[in-house]
């Protein structure tokens, strides 16, 4: 896998989030935070809320309204009481398209490796 065209920059207006399916059936979100774009897995890393529904983008901050976890999309810095980082796909804009580097699907730990299973719990 490599750089994949996900959408046109015009498909995702400033301060909005849209979900796309790319090759291999992988779902990802393209977030336009005004100053740029991020390509993210489709759920909140906290409790799997679908971020295209629960997420809001304002002032370059992404906030999940379920429990108010929040991240600065410019730096990915976590805000306030947020406990887990976002894990974006690398992304870039070329010729009016948003591209993401999809090597393999990024899945937060609660999905495949359960976060309370032995080996990775205390990490």
């Amino acid at each position: 896998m490599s750089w994949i065209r996900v959408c046109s920059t015009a498909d995702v207006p400033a301060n909005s989030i849209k979900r796309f399916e790319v090759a291999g059936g992988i779902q990802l979100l393209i977030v336009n935070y005004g100053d740029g774009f991020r390509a993210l897995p489709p759920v909140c890393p906290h409790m799997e809320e679908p971020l295209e529904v629960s997420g809001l983008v304002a002032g370059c901050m992404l906030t999940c309204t379920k429990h108010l976890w929040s991240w600065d999309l410019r730096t990915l810095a976590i805000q306030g009481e947020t406990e887990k980082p976002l894990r974006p796909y690398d992304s870039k804009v070329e010729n009016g398209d948003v591209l993401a580097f999809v090597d393999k699907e990024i899945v937060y730990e609660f999905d495949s490796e359960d976060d309370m299973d032995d080996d990775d719990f205390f990490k």
Partner: protein
Amino acid sequence: MTSSSRADALARIRPTDREGPEAHASPMKITVESKSGILDYQCEAGENLLYAGLAAGLGLPYECATGTCGTCRARVMSGEAELAWDKAPGLAYVKRDKGEVLLCQAHARSDCTVRVPAKIGPPSRHFATPAKSAGVVSKVARLTHDVIHFEVALDAPMAYDAGQFVVVSTPAVTGGRAYSMVNYAPGGRQLDFVVKRKPSGGFSEWLFSNAVEGTRLDLFGPLGRATFHPDEGRNPVCIAGGSGIAGMLAIASRACQEGYFSSHRGHVFFGVRTLADCFYMEEFSRLVSQSGGNLEVTVALSHEEATSEVHRDFRQIRLASGFVHEVAAKSMAGRFENAVGFVAGPPPMVDGALRMLIMEARLPAQFIRYDKFG
């Protein structure tokens, strides 16, 4: 996990059965494996695992404390725990085949080790440590056709913050209910609450249908972090629907009691369907008077046109038509600087208010406070 250990986990979570929690008489040791290390506390037979841990001073994660939100998810690694409410909606968030429970619905049947997928901080200096308490229903007053105010005379004084809640239970109704304190009198012996009648709502039906004055209630609290602290120096903007106004009255009361409105502004937006549905108008009018004009209280009518700009009987209360978060957005436009938002009410209203505070008010998440009951 191997299939045999999964079967083992299944055996560990059992719904409450005929033996009852009294089977184990002496205190049990609960060991907590968390992202910040290993801690332990003692728990009596039949005692709620979340409440026992919080009372022991552990900063266990929780939001609703009554089985709905799923925040207190934990995995029983060894020992036996049982679920008090097998149909708690919050169980949708747990993997029961892996031995997971909601601590707020679990009782230990033996010493247990539980895993909590969160960091457990030290007890907050901000909040009083919650504890079991009890009291007597000292007064019940109907405020509207479907809202009741009731007061509890506590056996012992309780310290709490404006915006906090307690879990109230009575043997007459299965399970506990979370109610925010309406009054702000920390260290006092009286707590006031407000309840909206809900079809098939066990506790509200009990309150509405019985002469409950004099009935003893069990309480656990104070709980909740959607609290107002004058030392933050921010202007409270409270957006509430229906009985969600409880904590907002406590917040406005605290601010008035401490002279906060001599140097800060405050805004309360109270959403109801029609003028006949609003309550606590006398209390809010008194606070507006005390605030020297720096507290504004607006009632938003969602199902009735406001025919004047102020309440016909309470001239200090403003009136507006529309959903409460829309009324708040319009009224507050350009005035959100240095605000801290408080939100409580039915889920669609809470969602609308959160969106407004994030998208329009541009409040950072740490200055938006609400307790998740849904």
